[in-house]
C-alpha cells in the first residue's frame, strides 16, 4: 500500500506541472493590468512602467514562465504583487482555517447525513422518507450565503448564543469552537444534504441484495443486518461523493468565509483575482491542485478500508 501511495504521488507530478502551466497562462489572459490595479486610475504612465518593472510583468512571457516554474520547483513561489509578502507565507497563514472548516463540516455532514440517509431508506415511501427527501433537496438548492445570513440572524442576533463576528482570538477551545460553529454548521448542513441523498439511494440498493436476505435468514438481529451488512456495502458511493464534494468545498467556501468574516483559501483566491495578484493566484492554484490530488488519494485509500475487493498495486 505504501508503494501505491508513493506511485500515486509520483504520478501527481506531471499533473501539477500541467496545472502550473495552464494557471500561468490563464492568470495572464485575465484582462486587466496589475500595475494599474495597484496604483489606481490616476497613476502616471511613468509610475505604471516603474511598477511593471518592479513586478517583472514587463519582461518576455517565456522568461517569466521559466522563472516561475524554476522558482516553484525549489519552493520559491515569489512574493505577493500586492502585499509584498511571500506567497507561501500568505497561503500557510490561511490554510489551517480552510482545513479545519472543511474537516469539521465533513464530520457534521457525515454524522447527520449517514444516519438520516439510512433512516430514510429504511422507511422508504413513509412520511419520514418524504420529509428527509424534501429537506435534503432544500439543503442542496439553498444558497450557502443565504443560509449563513439566516444562521447569523437566528443564532447570533435573536438567540445571542454566538458572536456575530468572532474575534481573531482563538486561544482557548471555547473561542475556537465559537468562531468555527456557524461556518462549519452552514457548510456541514449542505454536505449533510448531499450525503443523505447518496446514502439513501445506495442503502436502498444494498438492502435489496441477496446477502441481506442471507443475514436475516441466519437470525442476525435487524440492527446488525442494517449496519454491518447493509451500511458497509452502501458506503462506497458515499465515499466517492464526499471525495468529489470536498474538492468543491475547499474552493467554494468563499461565500461562507465572507459572511462570517473568516480567513481562508476561498477568500484569498477571490481577493487575489480582484487585484490581479498573479503570483499569489498561481500559488493558490497549485495548492488547490495539490489538495485535490491528496483528497483523491485519500478517497481511494478509503475504498480499500471498506471493500476487500479493492487491490492496490
Amino acid at each position: 500500500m505504501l508503494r501505491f501511495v508513493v506511485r500515486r504521488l509520483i504520478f501527481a507530478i506531471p499533473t501539477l506541472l500541467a496545472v502550473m502551466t495552464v494557471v500561468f497562462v490563464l492568470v495572464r489572459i485575465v484582462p486587466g493590468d496589475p500595475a494599474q490595479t495597484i496604483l489606481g486610475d490616476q497613476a502616471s504612465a511613468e509610475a505604471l512602467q516603474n511598477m511593471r518593472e518592479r513586478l517583472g510583468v514587463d519582461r518576455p512571457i517565456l522568461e517569466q514562465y521559466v522563472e516561475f516554474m524554476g522558482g516553484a520547483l525549489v519552493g520559491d513561489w515569489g512574493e505577493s504583487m500586492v502585499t509584498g509578502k511571500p506567497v507561501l507565507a500568505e497561503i500557510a497563514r490561511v490554510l489551517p482555517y480552510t482545513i479545519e472548516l472543511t474537516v469539521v463540516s465533513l464530520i457534521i455532514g457525515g454524522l447527520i447525513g449517514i444516519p438520516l440517509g439510512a433512516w430514510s431508506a429504511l422507511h422508504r415511501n413513509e412520511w419520514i422518507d418524504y420529509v428527509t427527501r424534501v429537506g435534503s433537496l432544500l439543503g442542496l438548492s439553498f444558497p450557502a450565503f443565504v443560509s449563513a445570513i439566516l444562521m447569523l440572524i437566528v443564532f447570533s442576533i435573536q438567540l445571542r448564543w454566538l458572536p456575530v463576528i468572532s474575534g481573531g482570538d482563538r486561544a482557548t477551545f471555547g473561542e475556537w469552537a465559537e468562531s468555527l460553529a456557524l461556518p462549519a454548521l452552514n457548510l456541514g448542513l449542505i454536505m449533510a444534504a448531499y450525503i443523505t441523498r447518496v446514502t439513501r439511494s445506495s442503502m436502498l440498493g444494498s438492502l435489496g441484495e441477496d446477502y441481506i436476505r442471507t443475514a436475516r435468514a441466519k437470525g442476525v438481529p435487524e440492527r446488525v443486518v442494517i449496519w454491518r451488512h447493509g451500511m458497509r456495502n452502501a458506503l462506497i458511493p458515499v465515499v466517492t461523493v464526499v471525495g468529489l464534494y470536498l474538492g468543491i468545498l475547499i474552493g467554494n467556501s468563499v461565500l461562507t468565509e465572507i459572511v462570517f468574516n473568516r480567513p481562508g483559501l476561498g477568500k484569498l483566491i477571490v481577493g487575489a483575482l480582484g487585484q490581479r495578484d498573479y503570483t499569489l493566484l498561481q500559488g493558490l492554484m497549485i495548492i488547490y491542485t495539490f489538495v485535490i490530488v491528496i483528497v483523491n488519494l485519500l478517497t481511494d485509500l478509503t475504498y480499500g478500508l471498506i471493500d476487500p475487493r479493492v487491490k492496490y498495486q
Partner: protein
Amino acid sequence: MTETGKIEPVLDVSNLTTSFRIGGEWHPAVRGISFSLQPNETLALVGESGCGKSMTALSILGLVPKANGRVEAEHIRFQGKDLSRLPDDEMRKIRGNGISMIFQEPMTSLNPVLPIGFQVVEALRYHQKLSRGEGEKRALELLELVKIPSAKSRFKEYPHQFSGGMRQRVMIAMALACRPKVILADEPTTALDVTIQAQILSLLNELKAETDMSMIFITHNLGVVAALADRVAVMYAGDIVEIAGVNELFARPTHPYTEALMRSVPRSDRDTKTLYSIPGAVPPLTRMPQGCRFAARCELAIDVCRTQNPPLDVLGSGGAHSVRCWVRGNHDLAEMKENADV
C-alpha cells in the same frame, strides 16, 4: 418436542397463503397450500419458475418483504410454535437455528465485504452462547465438514476469492451451523455447473444421513428430485397440484402438469429429435384464471376445468398420493357436468 416426536411432523404447514400487492390490489402467489414434513424426510417442491416454490420457503421463515407482501396461514407449526403468529423477535431465534435456508445464488448470497469465516461464526453467535474462540473453532469444523480444502488458511478470505461451488459450501456450512431441524434449500445447485451440482447434492445427502434433519428441497430439476427426495409436491401457479412419494410419483404421474413436466426432461436413452415443452406459460399473478390454473395449457381440459378449481383429492388408499384434477382425480364427471350446468 415430546416422545411422540417420531410420529409428529417436524413442520406442519396448513392453508398457507402469501399475497403481493400489485397496483393497489392483493394477488396471492401461494394459494392456501398445506403439507407436512416428517423427521429426516426430504420433501421436494417442484414446478416452473414463478409457481410459488421459493415464496413458500420464504413465508415459512417470515422473510417475505413486509412492504408489499402478506403471509396468512391457519398455522405453520414448528416445535410447538405457530410461526405464522410469532413476533419478529421470536421468529429471529428460529431463523438459522431451528430452520435455516440455503439460497439459489451463491455468487450474491454472501456478503462481499466480510470474511467467510466471520459469516459462518455469525450464524452461531446470535443463537449459541459461544466465546469468540469457541465460535471460530466450531465454524472451522463446519467448513471442514462441507469439505472446503485448507479451510483453516482460507478462514479469513473473502467471498470473491472462492468459486461458485465453494461459496455454496460456505452457505451450507452457515445453514448447518446450529444443527437445525429443518433446512430449506432453494434451488441450491441451479447456479452451478453440472459436476459441481453433483458434488453439492451428494454432500447434502451425506449431511442429511449423518444428522436427523429434514429438508425441503426446491427445484425444477426432476433428475435432482429422483436422486434426493423422499416425497414430492408439484406446484403450479401457487397451488400444490400433486403430492406423492417419490417412487409413486415417477411410476404414476397423475396430474397432467406432472406428466408434462416428466415429458420435458431430456433423456439420453431415447432417440428424440426435439425436446417436448409445455405450450404456453404460467399465468401472471394479476391474471389468474377462474378455474383450474393449468386448464389453458392442458390437453385434457373439459368445461368444468375452466370454471372451477378442483380440490386436492386423495388417490387410492393410504392417503399418500393426492392430486388436484377434475379429470384424473376421483370425480364423477357426469355429476360434475350436471352441477356445472345448473
